[in-house]
Each structure stands twice: as C-alpha cells, then as structure tokens.
C-alpha cells in the first residue's frame, strides 16, 4: 500500500513559468519530508526538506509547502529552467523511525525552452 503518492506521472511547463509538483501522504505519523531530483542513469540528489513544525521552506527557486491537515505537500519551482527537467520524488519519514523514508512514485518534469 503506497503511503506516499504522486498522482501526476508527468508535467510539462514552459521555461520561465512556475512548476508545481504535488505529493499526498496517508500516514499521520510522517513528520519529515524531502524532495529529491533524479536525472536518467544517475542516483537521486537531495533538493529540499521540510519538517512538520513548518508549513513552508524556501531555497532559491525552490519552495516546499506542507498542508498537514490535508496531508499534502507541493514543490514550487520558479522560474522553471530547462535544466530542471528530471524526475522528482517526494519522501516522508515517520517520527520515531530514525532514518527510514517512504518514497512516492515520482513525477517527470519537462521544461520546454
């Protein structure tokens, strides 16, 4: 049973516009969330994180929003660039389990020049 879901397998956005990637989770014990970016034939790389004590975290062009009541988080990329084209995974960790993360199925983002 998938505890972390990314319901959009793919997304296309024009260069310079905003990309919004969504992630839903079912486990109310999740209290720490990450976004990873993955290029083909490479391992995922860490992008941004958010703890459940916050509802927003920003790092340059990337902002993650957390809505705990809806069990929903989103990643905003503004402005989108062609180099952002990759697969994005969200991941969540339950409190008290140390380092174990559950990953979503990924969203493939294509930024069109």
């Amino acid at each position, binding site marked *: 049973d998938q505890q972390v879901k990314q319901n959009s397998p793919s997304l296309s956005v024009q260069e310079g516009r905003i990309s919004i990637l969504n992630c839903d989770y079912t486990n109310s014990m999740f209290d720490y969330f*990450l976004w990873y970016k993955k290029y083909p034939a490479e391992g*995922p790389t*860490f992008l941004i994180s958010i703890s459940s004590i916050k509802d927003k975290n920003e790092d340059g062009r990337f902002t993650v929003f957390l809505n705990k009541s809806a069990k929903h988080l989103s990643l905003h990329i503004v402005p989108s660039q062609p180099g952002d084209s990759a697969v994005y*995974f969200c991941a969540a*960790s339950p409190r008290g389990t*140390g380092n174990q*993360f559950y*990953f979503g*199925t990924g969203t493939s983002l294509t930024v069109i020049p």
Partner: protein
Amino acid sequence: DVKVTQSSRYLVKRTGEKVFLECVQDMDHENMFWYRQDPGLGLRLIYFSYDVKMKEKGDIPEGYSVSREKKERFSLILESASTNQTSMYLCASSSSREGYTFGSGTRLTVV
C-alpha cells in the same frame, strides 16, 4: 566530496545466477539502504542496515539478502536471479534524518 559508490553501472546476468551488487560509502555513515526503482512504482526499500552486521527487511526483501561486514560496505545479493529482478538498484547512506546520499545506481538486466 562525499560519495556513495556502486561497483557497476550496468550488469547483465542470466536467470539462476547468484548476483552481488556492491556499495561503498566514504562518509562514515551508520545507515545504509538498498532500493530498487521501477517505472510507476517509485523507489521501494529492499533492505537496510543501521550498524555493522545488522540488517532489517524493507518492503520487498523476497529473493534478496544483504551483507554488512564493514561499516562502509553494504552488499545486496540476489541468490538466484530472476527476470522480475530486472531493475535499477540504488544504494544510499545517511547519518541523520537530513536525508540520504545515493549512489549512481546499477541497471541490472536478467535474461
């Protein structure tokens, strides 16, 4: 630059072969993980280890085993490879909840 190194980028093995996937990290991390990535299924946890000689089953351990004799090395073993184990295998390590450092992955094809 911190690194997780997976010994092979691409492997082709025959059904029934015993397959070893090696992973080495140079960050002195306690925690190491093996995932497989399949289209539409995301990353699924196979096994993980929080200490030397310690191992825990993840979500899909069937058909796999692991070995962690040294802190820096975590090996994934396919006892008898099958075609449904064709996948991208990703090793990761971590020392905290800040997140994982992943290796570049091994694309395994079982024919």
